[in-house]
């Protein structure tokens, strides 16, 4: 009979030999194997005390950046929400009032900005889409929680505090930085560095 693959094995139901029926040699062999494991190095990483080394491009919890003056960069354009393949981002916009210039950089800002961390797949497309360099994925791990509601992060958890800026430079390796610099968004450019022919929207 021809078999479909070469992987099938023939099995036999032969009687056990005397030494096998004694069990003891096999038991001793097995016990020596387990004893050998006593002296093996343990691969465990004791998490809160030790941390596994992260790759430089690790994508973790998001941050909404502020600019140098401490104003929020996000202008609630919604490009991140459109780019998001998991539809994890929702937002609402509001108009900046007089006297709020130190809080929001542009005339329009996000009054609500929520990311559902249970939906997010940490692909980083929001960061790629953002024309204002406002949203970044950081090397922080999203903390676990007891309820689903707690996993919807609002502005209180996402926006960095002015006195404790979150470092996002780790991920900005040469290739990524070059990509961001050449992003062809009209509104991301100032009049001066707009190349002729490109900014003619």
């Amino acid at each position, binding site marked *: 009979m021809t078999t479909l693959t070469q992987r099938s094995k023939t099995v036999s139901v032969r009687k056990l030999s005397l030494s096998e029926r004694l*069990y003891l040699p096999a038991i001793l062999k097995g*016990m020596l194997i*387990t004893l050998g*494991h*006593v002296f093996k190095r343990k691969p465990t990483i*004791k998490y809160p005390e030790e941390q596994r080394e992260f790759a430089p491009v690790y994508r973790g919890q998001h941050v909404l950046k502020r600019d140098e003056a401490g104003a929020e960069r996000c202008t609630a354009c919604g490009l991140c929400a459109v780019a998001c393949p998991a539809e994890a981002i929702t937002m609402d916009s509001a108009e900046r009032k007089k006297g709020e210039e130190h809080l929001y950089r542009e005339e329009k800002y996000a009054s609500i900005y929520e990311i559902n961390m249970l939906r997010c797949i940490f692909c980083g497309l929001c960061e790629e889409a953002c024309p204002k360099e406002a949203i970044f994925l950081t090397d922080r791990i999203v903390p676990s929680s007891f309820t689903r509601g707690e996993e919807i992060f609002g502005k209180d958890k996402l926006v960095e505090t002015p006195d404790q800026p979150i470092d996002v430079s780790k991920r900005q390796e040469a290739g990524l930085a070059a990509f961001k610099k050449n992003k062809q968004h009209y509104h991301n450019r100032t009049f001066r560095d707009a190349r002729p022919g490109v900014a003619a929207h």
Partner: protein
Amino acid sequence: MEMLTYKILLCVIVFALSLGIAAYMTWGERKIAAILQDRVGPNRAGPLGLLQPLADGIKMFMKEEMIPGQSNKWLFILGPSFFMLTACMTGVVIPWGSGITVGDTVYPMQITDINIGLLYLLGVVSIGVYGIMIGGWASNNKYSLLGALRASSQMISYEVAMGLSLIALVMTTGTLNLGEIAAQQDAGWANVVYQPLGFLIFLVCAFAETNRAPFDLPECESELVGGYHTEYSSMKLGFFLFAEYINMFISSAVMATLYFGGYNFPFQHALGLEGNWLAVVQTAVLFLKISAFIFLFMWVRWTLPRFRYDQLMNLGWKVLLPLSLANIFITGIVMWLTGKLG
């Protein structure tokens, strides 16, 4: 009167010690399992996870107490109580040391030095199976009943071989008194030298009697859920599990006493230690031997898979029983040839 207070004190100490050791055996079991499997084991509760048994105990007490509606309530409670009781009863005949001399009186490190100690031990151990049987039957659950049936048939089968292997030992030592058996090994060799086969049979039977792997069929998780303690929860379950560890501790102590010289150790009189100091060192050595056996129990558990039921019965009746009979026969012939038969 003074002796009575001492005996009561010793009772309390042995009781507390076996409970404490059983508690830390659960920690040891998990630690050894972890080490043999390249893991770290419990390390969160206290340094090295040493407070883990305490945490486990609190957890057991906090759990909801469930008694199945269709069960026989009194028997359901009696089962684990009985198992625990018999487990704690075995410790009384074991000589924990040679005795401490204060003034003129010698305080023996043995609760009761009855001349049928070995018989008492076997008797109490075989009563122990009633705890499992009652518990499994009272649960009114098919898995529990199957577990209980397995437990009782396994314990009865292996008790035969165990008793017969001890008969050969009794033939060479000429006594059923555990204290005397331990004392005899001071002068001569340890009994394991005279009874290697008997020891091996006893060891295998001890594994089966304590329901430890590879003979843990009564609580076989893969096919019987939890075996005889499927329906148990809270501290009643804790009692079953705890009593198993006490049984393991006591059988380690019995094996050390019967076959490995008890509290005696080689060259003990060449150390130049006097009376009481020697007794203290001897007790420490006994506990060292016991720990070694406990480690063996755990080492085997985390190495071997479980026997199939027919293999278990074959091994018990077709291998161990004839072997122990042959052992008696050979022992008799050797004793006759060397003129030790009086």
